[in-house]
């Protein structure tokens, strides 16, 4: 892939955090792979947190 520009970096970051993984940009080195692992885990944590916010909204409405 070579050098990423800022838009490319944001694109790859969004695709990774959303756990989509198109595969057009692939981490090759260990450092890049570790970053991807960290971002995927963070993305899952954010998703869980987001759904818990929605759940708390719904719970409050029902009560």
């Amino acid at each position, binding site marked *: *892939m*070579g*050098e*990423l*520009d*800022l838009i*490319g*970096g*944001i694109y*790859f*970051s*969004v695709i*990774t*955090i959303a756990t989509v993984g198109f595969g057009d*940009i*692939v*981490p*090759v*080195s260990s*450092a*890049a792979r570790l*970053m991807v692992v*960290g*971002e995927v885990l*963070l993305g899952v944590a*954010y998703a869980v*947190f*987001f759904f*818990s*916010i929605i759940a*708390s*909204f719904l719970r409050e409405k029902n009560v």
Partner: protein
Amino acid sequence: MASRFGSLQQFIRRHRRIIQAVFFPIAAVSAFFYLFVLTAMVALDVLKYPSWFVAFGVFLYVQMWMIATDSAMDAVSELYGIKLLPWWRREFVPILPKRAQPRSRGALIGYFFLSYAIGIYGFALAYVAVSRYFIGSL
């Protein structure tokens, strides 16, 4: 040490309006520039910076992550009703002015999305920097 901070707090209290009108906007704009633009310039390797400048960029980058963590912890503590503070807030609470906690659900979602956006941007900068400083990483 404590008296020095006490006099600083007195000064801030006395000149609060001037600080709010003049200092905060300037500080906000320059903080935005330093944290989000300058770090991007270092990551993109726009100019040939000396190594100390790259170190400064990394230092700012860490601060960006501190904001992301801070916002996420604010939202989490509001949602679950627990007192959750990152270590830098615990350490510097006597010095820093008391920060307003998010009260409404809208503020909670705002803190969440702020943290999420900074997280995405932070990782994007990391990928850009890795691809440029370590050729063939991506």
